[in-house]
């Protein structure tokens, strides 16, 4: 059976390369050789991808191995106690784990509404001439090095926050009437002044270098990631979905709220989890603004804290013996948490992307 097709140009055709021709031209020996070459090529690529897996698992094993001392000495107490004392060699990382989660939570609370709003604006409401420059600027935020964010935060963000947010909160007060039983058993109406700064989450005197600053700078840093992913998800939703909603008489906001957002919900959640992954691991900017406090964890927004990443950055140079093992165990915890968060995001996006593409029946 001939391999050539009469309709395809062969030797004399203009610009006439075609796979069929190429295959036909090569001899049997050549073809076996190129098939073997193919197999080798695939083998090399497979080995390269296995290398990445090997690096990840090797890292995991190395972290676990290097922290075996503290795992052995402290066990589960490492996660439940509050003491971190290099002098007496007692290590427990609960303050840092909680601080990392708390600062990431604050970052999400601030960033998600802003990112979502920006993404909705960029995909639904933005005039065409503004769309590209604005998208570009948002993505540019992601490219700024974290040290630069830290510097900006120290010199500009923190003084601003102290002056306009933290001090007003600390000094805000209200007079409330209180019934008081006087010394001669008569009831009088007194006024007592209560301060917003007495609440546990605003307890400490505000100086700017605290948990709130860490949360704020993280919020700024993860906004571009969430915005970019959300905008892409929203743009991928077929027009027919929106148009169907308009056809039923909805306003623009109703279309967004009732139709578009639920459709995109899973993808946006994936984007949020990606941003969370970044917030958990951010080191430099956080350590410059969080205050590096070593005390027990408090829900106080004005309290100086240390996140897992900032403790490792600060202590590693000086550490030896059990101290290093404790720091590596913190690194192990951070690695596992970030891996799980990122894996979860990927799986979520993977399972829901199909829905979007197959949507619009």
């Amino acid at each position, binding site marked *: 059976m001939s391999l050539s097709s009469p309709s395809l140009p062969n030797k004399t055709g203009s610009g006439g390369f075609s796979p069929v021709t190429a295959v036909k031209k090569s001899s049997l020996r050549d073809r076996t050789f190129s098939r073997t070459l193919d197999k080798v090529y695939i083998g090399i690529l497979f080995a390269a991808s296995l290398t990445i897996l090997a690096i990840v698992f090797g890292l995991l094993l190395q972290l676990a191995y290097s922290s075996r001392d503290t795992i052995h000495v402290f066990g589960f107490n490492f996660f439940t106690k509050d*003491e*971190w*004392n*290099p*002098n*007496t060699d007692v290590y427990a990382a609960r303050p840092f784990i909680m601080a990392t989660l708390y600062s990431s939570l604050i970052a999400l609370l601030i960033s998600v509404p802003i990112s979502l709003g920006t993404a909705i604006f960029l995909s639904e409401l933005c005039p065409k001439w503004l769309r590209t420059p604005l998208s570009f600027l948002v993505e540019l935020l992601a490219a700024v090095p974290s040290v630069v964010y830290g510097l900006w935060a*120290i*010199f500009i963000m*923190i*003084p601003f926050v102290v002056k306009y947010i933290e001090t007003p909160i600390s000094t805000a007060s209200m007079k409330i009437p209180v019934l008081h039983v006087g010394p001669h058993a008569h009831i009088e109406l007194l006024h007592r002044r209560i301060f917003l700064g007495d609440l546990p989450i605003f307890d400490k*005197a505000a*100086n*700017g*270098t605290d948990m709130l600053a860490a949360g704020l700078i993280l919020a700024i840093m993860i906004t571009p990631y969430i915005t970019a992913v959300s905008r892409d998800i929203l743009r991928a939703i077929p027009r027919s979905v929106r148009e169907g909603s308009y056809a039923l008489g909805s306003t623009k906001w109703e279309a967004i709220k009732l139709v578009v957002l639920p459709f995109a919900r899973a993808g946006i959640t994936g984007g949020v989890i990606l941003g969370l992954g970044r917030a958990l691991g951010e080191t430099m900017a956080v*350590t410059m603004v969080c*205050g*590096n*406090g*070593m*005390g027990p964890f408090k829900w106080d927004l004005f309290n*100086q804290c*240390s996140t897992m990443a900032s403790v490792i950055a*600060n*202590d590693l*140079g*000086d*550490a*030896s*013996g059990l101290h290093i093992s404790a720091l590596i165990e913190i690194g192990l915890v951070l690695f596992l948490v970030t891996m799980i968060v990122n894996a979860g995001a990927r799986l979520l996006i993977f399972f829901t992307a199909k829905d979007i593409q197959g949507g619009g029946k």
Partner: protein
Amino acid sequence: MTLSLFRYSKFAAALIIAGGALMGGVAHAQDLQGAGSTFVNPIMTHWTADYRKSGGATINYQAVGSGAGINDLINKTVDFAGSDAPMNAVQLKNAGAPTLHFPDVIGAVPVVYNVEGIPPGINFTGDVVANIFLGRITKWNDPAITSLNPGKNFPDAAIFVVHRSDGSGTTGIFTDYLSRVSPEWKNIVGEGTSVRWPAGLGGKGSSGVALLMRSHANSIGYVELSYAIENSIYYAKIRNSAGKFIYPEPATAAAEADGIKVPDDFRVFFTNSSAKGGYPISGFSWLIIYKNSSKTGDLKNFLKWVLTDGQNSATALNYAPIPKSIREKELAVVNALK
């Protein structure tokens, strides 16, 4: 045309390599790597420049903190470590081979503050400082502070304590002083290059602390004297063991070392010493080397220079030179190095 250019560049490359080999044949001093204390960094920068100008080796010093410097020395990534706290028992054991400590300057650790309306040179006693850093005294107009400084208008504001977040010899000197003047401090916190601070924010390096001090009102902290002067931060007079309130400067830092007993390995803290006119929070900064190393010759030359010519630049940079008697003992040890 291209071909002859190619031949020409090959010839040029061969010439350069030959020339380099010739130059490499001439013996010249090897580069020295050092790391450690930020306390001594201002004068170390001068020393490395001056030493090279006077014909010595090129020295590269990184101010990563005393603790990190000692770790680098033990891991043999640097040739010498700068530290304001001598190696402790664990570090000496980890070093494996004998090490030598050489005091190169005496420095003062002022208690710095940034309070509006308060001039430089207010008075503090040791236990007031300890209580502030313990978090017991929380406001600037606390009677413990105002009673020492009559006539000054302290605001009714919270004190923001700033300390070091990294392992630091400056912390070593400061906590050694606090442990001597406050039994409560000694019990609760103790001394060391890295302690569990009961209160306050941490800055990375003396420069990090200075930055935090400048940007926060009503703050108090501790840095090395040259950082305070460089950043124009006010500092306090501290009452020494003779009862006098002393202002930190090179003369009083040097005076603190008067009459102390220096052991043969030169590892000693002398905070709160019995010297009458001394500033109580002062200490040595040491250059630490392995006794035997491949660069002993270059290290020996550098140490000799530091202990002789180098001492002349100390006072101008707000350090105090090592007293003559101690220097002579050190030079004897340096000269005995092989």
